[in-house]
């Protein structure tokens, strides 16, 4: 009986905690479906009196949120595809190919992980300006293209590829590129999926760098556009909650369907590292 009581208490705590974790997101969706002004009445309503989609309509028509969605999609998907390829090659090479200088270069990369990204931002802005990459989608995607943690994660995973497999392919006369394409890439698929979801997430959610590099309204990503809208529409709670929901929804759906890649990636990267 004592164990049963403890089990109920434990589950009650978990349910309350899970509700608290979800509450801000539930309220965001709820408020986005309320009529204008409804969320700012006292006491604040938890659910809409009449469900309306007018704010979503306004966001995609008068406020042309569609363009920002498109910018975010291009930057996030483009950045992710490039990152997966670049990181996959580098991680595999650091794990399996013997070349002079491999260890010092890799140690140098690891040391770079303690440097905050913001330290590089001022000179990077000047550099990109000289290269004509300010206000371009490519400029905004640069920070996600070669994240060091991704190289580290792939390297760790690639170490389990048996050398005998690679050597056999070499004896058969396969080129290194061919080996990478037909043996390494399929083997690395799970870890590349993990790296891919993290790249997508960081590109989609990033704020400071796009804010710096995209000054032209037409190139804004969703977070930058949303921050900008919030300045003009600070009183329109329901409208802003609609904008927040549109911004969060894609990463949230991606998480629901691909959560094992997130969870594996975090749990693997931390324990072995």
């Amino acid at each position: 009986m004592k164990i049963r009581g403890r089990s109920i208490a434990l589950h009650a705590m978990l349910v309350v905690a899970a509700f608290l974790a979800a509450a801000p997101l539930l309220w965001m969706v709820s408020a986005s479906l309320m009529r204008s002004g409804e969320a700012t009445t006292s006491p604040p309503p938890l659910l809409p009196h009449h469900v309306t989609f007018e704010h979503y309509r306004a966001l995609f028509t008068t406020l042309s949120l569609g363009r920002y969605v498109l910018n975010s999609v291009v930057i996030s998907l483009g950045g992710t595809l490039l990152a997966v390829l670049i990181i996959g090659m580098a991680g595999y090479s650091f794990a399996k190919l013997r070349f002079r200088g491999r260890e010092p270069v890799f140690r140098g990369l690891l040391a770079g992980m303690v440097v905050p990204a913001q330290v590089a931002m001022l000179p990077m802005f000047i550099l990109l300006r000289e290269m004509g990459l300010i206000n371009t989608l490519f400029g905004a995607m640069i920070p996600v293209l070669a994240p060091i943690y991704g190289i580290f994660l792939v390297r760790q995973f690639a170490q389990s590829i048996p050398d005998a497999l690679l050597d056999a392919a070499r004896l058969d006369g396969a080129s290194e590129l061919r080996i990478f394409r037909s043996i390494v890439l399929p083997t690395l698929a799970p870890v590349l999926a993990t790296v891919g979801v993290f790249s997508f997430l960081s590109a989609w959610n990033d704020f400071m760098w796009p804010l710096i590099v995209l000054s032209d309204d037409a190139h804004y990503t969703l977070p930058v556009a949303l921050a900008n809208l919030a300045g003009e529409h600070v009183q329109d709670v329901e409208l802003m909650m609609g904008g927040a929901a549109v911004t969060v929804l894609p990463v949230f759906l991606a998480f629901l369907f691909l959560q094992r890649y997130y969870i594996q990636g975090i749990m693997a990267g931390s324990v072995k590292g």
Partner: protein
Amino acid sequence: MMTEEERAESRAGWGFVTPALVLIGIFFVIPVLAAFVLSFTDFDIYSIGDFGSTRFVGLKNYHDLFTTPLFWTSLKNTLYFVVLGGPLSVAVSLGAAILVNARMVRFKPFFRSAFFAPWVTTLVAVALVWRYIYHPQYGLINSALSHVGIGPIDWLGDPHWAMPAIVVLSIWKNFGYNMLVFLAGLQSIPAELYEAAALDGAGGWQRFRQITVPMLGPTFVFVGVVTMIASFQIFSEPYIMTQGGPLKSTTTLVLFMYEQGFRWWRLGYSAAIAVILFLLTLMGTAVQFRLQRRSDP
């Protein structure tokens, strides 16, 4: 001497890491080094049009910085966030991990995902959501508190409450990540250790102190360092929720750097702030490793 095969492998090895190294070199290593150089110059809006107008000014930017009260305020605010938010966030993560990991818990994957979900959300969006949740008049928090007789608090408008309010948002947003790291650590502790301790009559708290905490040692270092580095970089939360106010009580180092660099185009001065951010991060990391080494038997 290398054989032909070894040479081919070496070429391929370099070839495969080149795209990553070129990108990291151009867009990370060079800019980081350039930030140090920049911090000794008077690079400003005129220099952007004409690099030739830039001059080396030695330590002037640092001197100016150390004599600017707002720099010390932003440093204090950042340290407040790091020192208050960091340990609290680690504690919440560990608590959640222990709850989810308890043997009798059912639907573990559900709770694990529910706690992790805020981490995947977009900070700008949820910071906006929390800005309304903290609203003094219509916010859910004050509405809930009014039921227990606590008067309305102007969370984001009161200099004493604004930073703690941001800390709470930030814990909510981030604790799921460290919870997963702790879960991985907890699952790697052999169950026999707990069984043996239980046979010896050790209570729950004793088992936590004597087994869980020491066995999680390396995990604590990892979580501590990652959380601290991220905390030093806090920018978007105050940018969205308070714009650094009220009375500059939430102006952080990176927000200060952003405003000096990209609003007033004082890039040299701003680079000095970046260098200080870098040194602080480095010092914090070293301290964490030192503490860990001392606590190891």
